[in-house]
């Protein structure tokens, strides 16, 4: 059959959606319990929101879906939302900045071109943003929230990696490179090409070579590692200390809360808007999400000096990795053998009663294939009176019944005892 689905797009089939909704529900309930409010931003945004320095790297911008809208005769381009944080920050600036701190979360789709067509160009993310706070505790809260979501989804072997965009930016400033080259190397690191960027920094300032090698090559698991590094970096410049102090504070708080992590400055892959702590979440070797602090983004949007931090988890990865399946409501497949109006009416009324009591009631013709509900209720008319045949697919047992009340009675007993009708 000729492929009708767009290259690079993906459908979510009923089973996929059930798992998707499960992950979404866990994420939503976690965020709500931490005091976060849900938002949903527009799928279309202006391109210029993403183009200035400090938003998306040129590499990412080359993959956004941008076009002229139907009234775009001025040449102003719009994009399909390529990222969740920038629209959330835009929403905050336009609506919530007066209220100070805002804790927001979202489940949204993002669109970025993917060249091979093997992966979906539409990706779902669940993210949380804590806007209006510069405190290290805000960063730690976000890390803990993300870890809680993954724990509730049954993910094991979740690894947290920490880096610090502020420290990387400070190192670039000390390299003596011109600002444009600093930006380019920072973009390389954010695009995951740390080796190339490091080589550029070392070439610019050979005296930093050992310190940079130590900082980027070694991995630490305690604040002590950062304190050791701070001593080494002090040889380069005291201007690195504020970022390092912030890094140590966050690492210390995570340690005190019993949260394990690995400090890996090379793991800083992310967005150009990051200015402080960076965190990545991995399950095995698979990256499942990340985030960080972005204190310059809201000022860039003329939203005042509001600092902010956030994270996003890759829904597609979570759906794939999440253990268990969502709770399934007991389902009853209803077959009506009486095709008269009276018979159809009885079928609808019985289904409505079952739904009122919290069951899935799925009416289908007797010869139609249907989902594998546990119960099958066949309704027929005998001498003008309705007769019900309730079958339990699990046990293979059946019961002849005279009324809807009897049906409910059996279903309730089965639900309570997990037994089947005798």
């Amino acid at each position, binding site marked *: 059959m000729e492929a009708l689905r767009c290259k690079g797009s993906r459908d979510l089939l009923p089973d996929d959606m059930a798992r998707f909704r499960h992950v979404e529900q866990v994420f939503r309930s976690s965020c709500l319990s931490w005091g976060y409010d849900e938002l949903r931003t527009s799928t279309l945004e202006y391109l210029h929101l993403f183009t200035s*320095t400090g938003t998306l790297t040129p590499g990412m911008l*080359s993959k956004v879906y941008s076009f002229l809208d*139907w009234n775009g005769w001025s040449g102003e381009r719009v994009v399909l939302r390529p990222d969740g944080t920038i629209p959330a920050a835009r929403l905050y600036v336009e609506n919530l900045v007066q209220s100070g701190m805002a804790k927001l979360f979202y489940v949204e789709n993002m669109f970025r071109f993917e060249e091979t067509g093997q992966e979906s160009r539409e990706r779902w993310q669940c993210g949380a943003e804590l806007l209006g706070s510069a405190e290290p505790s805000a960063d730690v809260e976000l890390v803990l929230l993300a870890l809680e979501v993954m724990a509730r989804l049954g993910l094991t072997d979740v690894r947290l990696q920490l880096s610090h965009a502020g420290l990387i930016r400070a190192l670039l400033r000390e390299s003596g490179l011109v600002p444009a080259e600093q930006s380019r190397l920072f973009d390389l690191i954010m695009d995951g090409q740390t080796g190339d960027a490091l080589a550029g920094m070392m070439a610019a300032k050979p005296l930093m070579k050992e310190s940079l090698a130590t900082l980027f090559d070694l991995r630490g698991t305690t604040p002590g590692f950062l304190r050791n590094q701070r001593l080494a970096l002090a040889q380069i410049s005291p201007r690195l200390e504020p970022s390092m102090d912030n890094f140590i504070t966050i690492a210390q708080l995570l340690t005190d809360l019993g949260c394990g992590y690995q400090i890996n400055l090379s793991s800083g892959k992310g967005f150009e808007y990051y200015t402080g702590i960076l965190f990545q979440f991995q399950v095995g070797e698979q990256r499942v999400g990340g985030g960080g602090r972005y204190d310059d983004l809201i000022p860039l949007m003329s939203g005042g000096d509001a600092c902010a931090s956030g994270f996003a988890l890759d829904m597609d990865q979570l759906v794939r990795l999440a253990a268990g399946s969502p709770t399934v409501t007991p389902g009853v497949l209803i077959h009506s053998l009486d095709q008269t109006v009276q018979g159809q009416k009885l079928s609808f009324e019985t289904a409505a009663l079952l739904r009122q009591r919290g069951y899935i009631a799925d009416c289908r013709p007797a010869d139609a294939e249907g989902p594998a509900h546990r119960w099958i209720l066949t309704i027929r008319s005998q001498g003008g009176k309705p007769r019900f045949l309730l079958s339990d697919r699990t046990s293979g047992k059946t019961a002849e019944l005279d009324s809807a009340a009897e049906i409910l009675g059996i279903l309730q007993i089965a639900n309570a005892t997990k037994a089947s009708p005798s």
Partner: protein
Amino acid sequence: MQLKLALPKGRLQQPTGALLRESGLEIDGYDEQSRSYRPACPNWPDLTMKVFNERDIPIQVAVGNYDLGVCGQDWAEELLSRYPRSALVKVKPLPYGGRDLCLVADASSPMATLGELATGPGRVRIATEYPNLAESLCLNRRMRRFSIIPVWGAAEAYPPESADVALIPREDDAPVDPSLSSLATVLRSSAFLVAHRASWESRDMAPLLERLYATIGRTQPAAPQVRAAPAARATDPSSRAQRDPAAVWLALPDGHQQTPVAEFLEQAGIRLTPRPQEARRPSINLDGVRTKIVRPQDMPLQVANGNFDLAITGEDWVAEHLCRFPSSPVKKVLRLGLGKVKIVAVVSKRLPFENTQDLRSPLRRHGFAILRIASEYVNIADRFARDNHLTPYRLLPTWGASEAFLPEDADVLIENTQTGRTIAQHNLKIIDTLFESSACLVTGESATNGSELKRKRIDEVIDLLRRSAHQN
């Protein structure tokens, strides 16, 4: 082995023909006088050639309709900057067709460098025939807010009123017009031999390439032509220097419509006087009216953006604009009755289609997996296909020489015609007339901008033209 070669018409046609002939290929029907789009090579019968506008060639080669092509590197880069993974291989630069792409601003502009442009406040408007390269430039230079104004040509006429800068081609190191200042040379290009990637990877094209390479090796790159720099700008005040908020900007067409429109204006008592220093800004004998000569294709968009208050363009281009931007403020105020053409749907005479209805359900029966519709009027063609339920279809934007596309590279052409003779000469037939078009006067809904004086001036121009139109 059969090889398909796409050849350019226009500026690269003569030197490309010379290159092929010096390489020992006898090429018939590839000269500027030829009306055929299919040159022949009697001493290499396996070589199939077709002539296109050079802008179409990278696309035709990238999609695999041709194994090799010759075009300007600028047009190859224009494609690759937007579609870096397209199947286009840049094989070899050719020693002719030198062209730089320069970013220019009006000479009076305070901007002197690209850096100043990138870091300046507000939105930067860039007029250009190269929208993909311009967008790529803006993104890489981290310009926060920019508008690309795609134009069919004459981009240099847009600054400073209608654009902040223009990205324009400059042939063979010709000096930049003194009314403009160059901020940067974005690309230095020449003619280029390009190949389809799969052909390059799987087909033996060496016999042809060896001949071409040998000739190229013998050919020294053409020395840049030394051209006299245009004289310094005249001291008499140009239209740029005067800032009058009530001034009415009138756009006039270039190309083949320029002379008939000038005659029409003359008939209405409106005289244009050329300005030697500003060829695209003739003076006009109407108080408070300024003129600029641009491509008629670009006028509706410019009127919509308020860069012109009135424009003489074709109804076809107004329709094209409104198909793309249905809520545009552009409105037609007067049909001038000159430059009449029909916009028609055309197919090859070989096809069993006699009307638009035939393009619908029998599509698959006649072996068309997808109906390929070529047109310079890409939005009209899109509307035509949608309204007639021609599904599935694919649009092929073209930049001229559109008849060449049928039947090998497209199935249907949406084209304008005066008499239908050219269409018949290319063994094509008209199966539908979409509408008739003539030159018209358009304005924008908010052109007066609240100024009573401006409204009066606009009305005066309309009245003059209306009287002349009635005589036609």
